[in-house]
C-alpha cells in the first residue's frame, strides 16, 4: 500500500461495523449517559450533593431518596450524579496529559530512533517498573494528596502505554512509501510527523484513549478510596465508598451504589473500546 487510506470512506466503514456490534453500542450508550450526567448533574440531581440532614442518616432507598442517604444524611443519588462530574473531569485531564505527552514521546522516539528513542524507552521502562496503581501512589507520595495531584498522577501513570503504542505504529509507518514520497517532496520532519504519521496512527491511539478512560477511573477512584485523591466532602465515587465502609453491615446500600456506578462506567468504556478495536482494525478480531 503506497497510498495512505482514504479517511472518509474508512470512517464510514468503521461506523458501519460499529453499528452492528451490540456490545459496543451498549458501551457507547453507557458512556453517553455518563457524559450527559456529568455535564448536567446540577440540573438533574434532585438534591444538593452536600446538603445533609443528620436526622435522616443512612436511610435505605425511598421515593424521596432513590438510592437512600449516606452517613451525613445526604442524598446518595444526587452525590453519584455529581460524582460523575468529578470523575469525568479527572479522566479527561489525566488522559489528555497522557495522550499529549505519550504521543509526543512515542513520535519522537519512533521517528528519530537512535539515542532519543533509547532514552525515551528506558524512561518508560523505569515508569513501568512501578507496577500498576503503585506508580500512581508513588507519584502522589512525591506530590502529596489532592485532586490536582491525583489527575497528574493518573496522567503520568498512563504515559508509557501511549508512548509505546505510538512508537510501535510510527516504526512500521515510517518505512511506508507515502512517507518517502512526502520526504522526497521536501516536507520537513514536523510536517511528516504531524500531517502524515500521526493521522495514520490514529486508530490505536483512539482505542487506547477509550480503554484508558476506564483504567484511569479505576485508578483514580482507588486512590480516592485510599484517601490519596479527592478529599471529602467532594462527591467522588471512590471517596464515597471509603466513607461508607464503617456502615457496611448496618447500611450496605451506602457502599453499594458508588461501586456500581464505577463498575458501570468502567464497563461502558471497556465495551466501547473493545468495539472500536474490532471496528477500526478487524484483523485483530478472532
Amino acid at each position: 500500500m503506497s497510498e495512505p487510506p482514504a479517511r472518509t470512506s474508512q470512517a464510514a466503514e468503521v461506523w458501519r461495523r460499529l453499528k452492528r456490534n451490540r456490545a459496543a453500542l451498549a458501551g457507547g450508550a453507557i458512556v453517553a449517559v455518563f457524559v450527559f450526567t456529568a455535564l448536567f448533574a446540577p440540573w438533574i440531581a434532585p438534591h444538593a450533593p452536600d446538603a445533609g440532614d443528620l436526622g435522616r442518616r443512612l436511610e435505605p432507598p425511598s421515593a424521596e431518596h432513590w438510592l437512600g442517604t449516606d452517613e451525613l444524611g445526604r442524598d446518595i443519588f444526587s452525590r453519584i450524579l455529581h460524582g460523575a462530574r468529578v470523575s469525568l473531569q479527572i479522566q479527561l485531564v489525566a488522559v489528555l496529559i497522557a495522550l499529549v505527552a505519550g504521543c509526543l514521546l512515542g513520535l519522537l522516539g519512533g521517528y528519530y530512533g537512535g539515542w532519543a528513542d533509547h532514552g525515551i524507552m528506558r524512561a518508560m521502562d523505569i515508569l513501568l517498573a512501578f507496577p500498576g496503581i503503585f506508580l500512581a501512589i508513588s507519584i502522589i507520595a512525591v506530590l502529596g494528596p489532592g485532586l490536582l495531584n491525583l489527575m497528574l498522577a493518573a496522567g503520568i501513570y498512563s504515559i508509557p502505554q501511549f508512548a509505546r503504542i505510538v512508537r510501535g505504529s510510527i516504526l512500521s509507518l515510517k518505512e511506508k512509501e507515502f512517507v518517502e514520497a512526502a520526504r522526497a517532496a521536501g516536507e520537513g520532519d514536523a510536517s511528516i510527523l504531524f500531517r502524515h504519521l500521526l493521522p495514520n496512527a490514529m486508530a490505536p491511539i483512539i482505542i487506547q484513549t477509550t480503554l484508558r478512560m476506564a483504567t484511569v477511573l479505576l485508578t483514580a477512584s482507588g486512590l480516592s478510596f485510599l484517601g490519596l485523591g479527592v478529599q471529602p466532602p467532594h462527591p467522588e465515587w471512590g471517596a464515597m465508598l471509603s466513607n461508607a465502609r464503617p456502615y457496611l453491615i448496618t447500611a450496605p446500600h451506602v457502599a453499594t451504589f458508588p461501586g456500581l456506578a464505577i463498575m458501570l462506567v468502567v464497563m461502558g468504556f471497556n465495551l466501547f473500546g473493545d468495539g472500536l478495536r474490532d471496528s477500526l482494525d478487524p484483523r485483530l478480531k478472532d
Partner: protein
Amino acid sequence: MIRYILKRLAMLVPVLFGVTLVSFSLLQIVPGDPAVLLAGEDANPDFIEAVRKEYGFDQPLHVQYLRFVARAVQGDFGISIRNRQPVIHLLLQRFSFTVQLSFLSILIAAAIGLIAGVISATRQYSIFDHASMVGALFGISLPIFWLGLLLMLVFSVHLRWFPAGGSGELRHLVLPAIALGAASAAVIARMTRASMLEVIRQDYIRTARANGLRETVVIYKHALKNAMIPVITVFGLEFGYMLGGAVLTETVFSLPGVGRLMVEGIFQRDYAVVQGAMLLVATTFVLVNLLTDIAYALFDPKIRYE
C-alpha cells in the same frame, strides 16, 4: 539462552538505576529540608544534624545518591520516625505478607483464567464462551475495593464462611486473594482465549489431527503448550500488578501488607518508609519480570536454542 539471559540482565541496569534515582529523588522533591523530613519535624536539632551528616545531605547530590544506594544495598533504609524501628524490619514483615497474598491470588487467577480461556477458545461462540467473556468483562471492570467489600458482605457477614477480619491464617486470605485476583483472572482468560484461537488455526494443529491424535491431546498438549508462551508474560505482569495493587485489598480487609505501610507512610510523612517501599516493590517487580522472561525462554525453544 545464556546470551538471552545476559541481555535481559544488562537491560535491568538502567531500569534499576532509574528506580533508585526516583526513590532517591523523593526527599529532594518533597518541599522541606531532607534531614528534617527524615528525622521528623519535632526532632531535636542535634539529631537533625546527625541525620544530615550520616546521609550526607551537606554533600553534593551525586555523593548523596551513591550513599543512598550503598545503604540500600546493605538493607539499610533508615529508621521509621513513627514506629521507631529500622525500616527494613517493617518492610520485610509487611512485604512477605503481600507476597503471600499475591501468590495465592495469582494461583487462583491463573487456574480460573487458563481453564476459562481454553474452554472458551475450543468452543468459540458457545454459551460457555459468551458467559466467560462477560465474566471477564466484569473482572476487568470491577473496582477491587468494591469487590472486596461485596465479598466481605456476602461471605463473611451474611454467610459467615470466612472471617471478616484478622490475618495470619489461610482462611483470612481467601476472600482478599479472590478480590485481588479477579481482574487478573479476567485478563488471563482473555489472553489465553485469544492465544488459543490463534494457535488452533495453525498448520501443526492440523498435522496433529491428521496424525490421529486424540482431540484432548491436540488441545491440551499440542495447542496449549504453544498458546502458553504469550500468556506466561501476562502471569509475570499480573503478579507484579498484584504486588503493587494489593494496597486496595489490604485496606479493605485491614491486612498488614506493604502497600498499606506505604500509604500510611504517605499520610504520616514517614519518608524513610515510603522511600523503602517504593524501592522494594519496584525492584521486586523488575526481578519478577526477569524471571518471567526466563520462564518464557524455557517454554519457547526458539529462544532457548538461539
